[in-house]
């Protein structure tokens, strides 16, 4: 079978489903009695199995099949959720991820699955039966259906009003082709006659045909059993309908029940309606999958358009033609709207990156023999895909760092009067034109004395400098190259590459990283990232005959100063700025610009900052502010000093973008 064209979809969906299984397992660990998690995991694993079988990946199929068997035992409460079980299942997920990764890299997805398979089989055989897990919810309904308390209330309410509640099990014929269509027809009939309270699998799953040949529905209606049966059987390709009336549920939460029962019946039936409406609304909220390459192509085309827009604006300005100026103005506005739409299309929730951390933390805490809880906030925060792709590794580094160096051993924590369990909080949020990601731990904080000694030892700072450093500057030393303060070099974070790599990556993304630390209380790393990397606002300026762009995000303000306002301190030219003295950087010298001379007695200065440091960049003249498309210099020219990229101006000329971070030391 020619399956190549489906390979992309297969890989995407497999990864999605694996993520579901992964999340589900971690949820299950926290809340082992919640059968909903098992349902989610089971369904995802089942889909995965089906897809791998279709695509002909045997090892994937075998492994997921075995997982499914084990999960089935858990689902039927024949097996208790234990740490050991979760370990094995998570290992299996890891193996599966590995195999899917292999497939996406062009491999055949084959792997040695025997050891993990044996582990799974061992569980399967032992079949530890624990009856504690059986929840009383299932009374009165056959096996698979579990109702939450709201649904139970609705059923009780309906029964007390003399309506019938049925549990329908509808089986399609084995050769049914358009399963989703049949499901739709059944639902249409049902909705004419009453309200669907619950369906297993969910409506969305049914509509995407992710089920075998049978589905279950809980249904409230005034129609009699027989009539209902006839109506449903009119739909073709239906093999069998079994209808079981549901009696009022003998609820163990009596108090809750009474309260709800007292509410007027109208409200309850309204709620039923609302419930089913929102369900339908959800399935109507349509999305399409678009290949990222196409979005990239769209973005590239738009970038070209932005360049031409700049050019048109310039021409219109020069020609001073009323209609032209107006049209160009309108076009600029439209293209700004277009720009924001395209940019949001490329936005993806940071969840994608965060998702892999719970498992990583779980595994690392075991290896380190620590007890650490990872909390995630703001996973829905959206960022441009280009940033998302790059931010993963730095975050892994920082989290490892927090786990390894930040959080103390449980015994130490106890001795210091802290909770045995350490906490690491991963938080993302928007603010202005930036996205912030914070990693904070409640560990031991940064030991400044130790950091300073280490810095001196590794000659990161000289003894003279060391005396003048503020606490904050000392904290930031851990981001300097060649630094690892862990007494024992573990294989986690003492791998030779320090946090300086993190800092470099983040700065290359146009972001900044800050540390705040309180000894004994914990450390917080705050990463500030731009929303997008492709279009930025810059201040254009000329030096000699060359044009340079300075990113607006780093600029505090611009100023004109007289020659005599420049003071020289220890050979360094400085200027006054807001009650302090800041160094001046003459770009014409740093960039060796030929024939740049400043005839006038004034200098144009762009005042920029990097963290808390401020400096003035001296240029010949300022042109103005403009939105430009950021382009890189290609792979041939990487790491050019003081230049972070280039952009194409309205007249087709290439202007270089100044990397202010590397200028301020």
């Amino acid at each position, binding site marked *: 079978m020619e399956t190549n064209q489906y390979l992309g979809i297969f890989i995407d969906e497999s990864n999605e489903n694996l993520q579901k299984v992964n999340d589900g397992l971690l949820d299950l660990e926290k809340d082992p009695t919640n059968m909903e998690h098992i349902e989610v995991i089971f369904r995802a694993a089942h889909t995965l199995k089906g897809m791998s079988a279709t695509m002909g990946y045997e090892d994937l199929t075998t492994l997921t099949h075995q997982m499914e068997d084990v999960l089935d035992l858990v689902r039927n409460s024949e097996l208790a959720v234990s740490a050991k079980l979760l370990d094995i299942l998570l290992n299996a997920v890891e193996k599966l991820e590995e195999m899917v990764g292999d497939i996406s890299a062009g491999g055949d997805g084959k792997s040695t699955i025997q050891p993990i398979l044996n582990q799974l089989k061992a569980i399967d055989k032992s079949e530890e039966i624990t009856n504690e897990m059986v929840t009383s919810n299932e009374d009165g309904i056959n096996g698979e259906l579990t109702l939450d308390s709201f649904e139970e209330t609705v059923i009780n309410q309906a029964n007390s009003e003399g309506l019938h509640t049925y549990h329908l099990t509808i089986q399609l014929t084995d050769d049914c082709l358009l399963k989703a269509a049949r499901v739709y027809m059944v639902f249409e009939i049902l909705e004419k006659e009453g309200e669907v309270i619950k369906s297993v699998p969910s409506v969305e799953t049914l509509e995407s045909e992710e089920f075998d040949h049978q589905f279950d529905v809980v249904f409230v209606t005034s129609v009699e059993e027989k009539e209902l049966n006839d109506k449903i059987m009119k739909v073709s390709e239906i093999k069998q309908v079994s209808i079981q009336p549901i009696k009022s549920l003998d609820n163990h939460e009596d108090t809750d029940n009474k309260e709800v029962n007292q509410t007027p019946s109208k409200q309850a039936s309204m709620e039923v309606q609302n419930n089913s409406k929102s369900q339908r609304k959800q399935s109507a909220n349509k999305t399409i999958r678009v290949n990222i390459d196409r979005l990239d192509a769209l973005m590239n085309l738009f970038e070209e358009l932005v360049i031409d827009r700049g050019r048109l604006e310039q021409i219109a300005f020069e020609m001073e033609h009323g209609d032209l100026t107006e049209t160009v103005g309108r076009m600029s506005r439209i293209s700004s709207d277009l720009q924001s739409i395209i940019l949001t299309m490329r936005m993806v929730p940071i969840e994608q990156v965060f998702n892999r951390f719970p498992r990583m933390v779980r595994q690392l805490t075991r290896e380190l023999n620590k007890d650490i809880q990872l909390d995630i906030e703001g996973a829905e925060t959206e960022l441009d895909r280009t940033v998302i792709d790059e931010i993963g590794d730095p975050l892994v580094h920082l989290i490892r760092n927090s786990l390894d160096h930040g959080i103390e051993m449980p015994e130490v924590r106890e001795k210091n009067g802290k909770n045995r369990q350490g906490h690491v909080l991963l938080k993302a949020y928007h603010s202005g034109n930036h996205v912030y990601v914070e990693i904070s731990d409640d560990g031991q904080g940064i030991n400044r004395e130790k950091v300073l000694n280490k810095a001196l030892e590794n000659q990161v700072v000289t003894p003279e400098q060391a005396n003048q450093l503020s606490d904050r500057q000392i904290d930031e030393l851990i981001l300097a190259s060649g630094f690892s303060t862990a007494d024992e070099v573990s294989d986690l974070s003492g791998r030779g590459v320090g946090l300086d790599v993190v800092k470099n990556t983040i700065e290359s993304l146009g972001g900044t990283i800050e540390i705040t630390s309180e000894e004994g209380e914990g450390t917080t790393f705050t990463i500030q990232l731009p929303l997008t990397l492709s279009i930025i606002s810059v201040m254009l300026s000329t030096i000699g005959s060359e044009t340079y762009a300075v990113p607006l995000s780093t600029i505090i303000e611009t100023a004109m100063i007289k020659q005599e306002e420049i003071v020289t301190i220890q050979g360094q030219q400085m200027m006054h700025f807001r009650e302090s003295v800041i160094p001046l950087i003459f770009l014409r010298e740093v960039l060796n610009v030929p024939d740049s001379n400043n005839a006038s007695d004034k200098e144009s200065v762009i005042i920029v900052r990097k963290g808390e440091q401020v400096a003035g960049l001296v240029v010949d003249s300022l042109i103005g502010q403009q939105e430009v498309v950021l382009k890189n210099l*290609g*792979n041939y*020219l*990487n790491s*050019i000093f003081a*230049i972070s990229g280039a952009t194409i101006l309205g007249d087709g000329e290439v202007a*270089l973008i100044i990397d202010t971070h590397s200028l301020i030391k």
Partner: protein
Amino acid sequence: MSEVSKEIKVIVFRLQNEEYGVPIDYVGSIERMLEITRIPNTPKFIKGVINLRGIVTPVIDLRERFGMDASEYSSRSRMIIVQIDDKEVGMIVDEANDVVDLKEDAIETPPEVIGSVDTDYVRGVAKLDDRLLILLNLDRVLSNEEVNQLSAVEK
């Protein structure tokens, strides 16, 4: 298959009085001189970047890359845009005027001294009637070791 000698197409260009060739597979396009934006703090042979239909592309002066005397660009000067691995670079040459077919087995390993170019950059030489064609080893010519070394010093 191996008995039939493979033919390759080669773009021929001139530097000073010598003729050089690069396989056509590596060549994206040949451009007239475009406006170049200088990049500060780079080796002298890196002339800067150009706007190649919306893509910022670095250009090098091949004469200077090989340590020949620099010369003014004329109306015959060309930029040969080559792609190798993930790098795209424009090479400024005195003239680009020909495409020839070369038999793979007509290419000989370079002698110790060949023209004015370091043999390191030469893949082989080919005789073409009475012309001598020097085939470049683009991998070496476009290695960015030297580029990075220099920018590392600047830092």
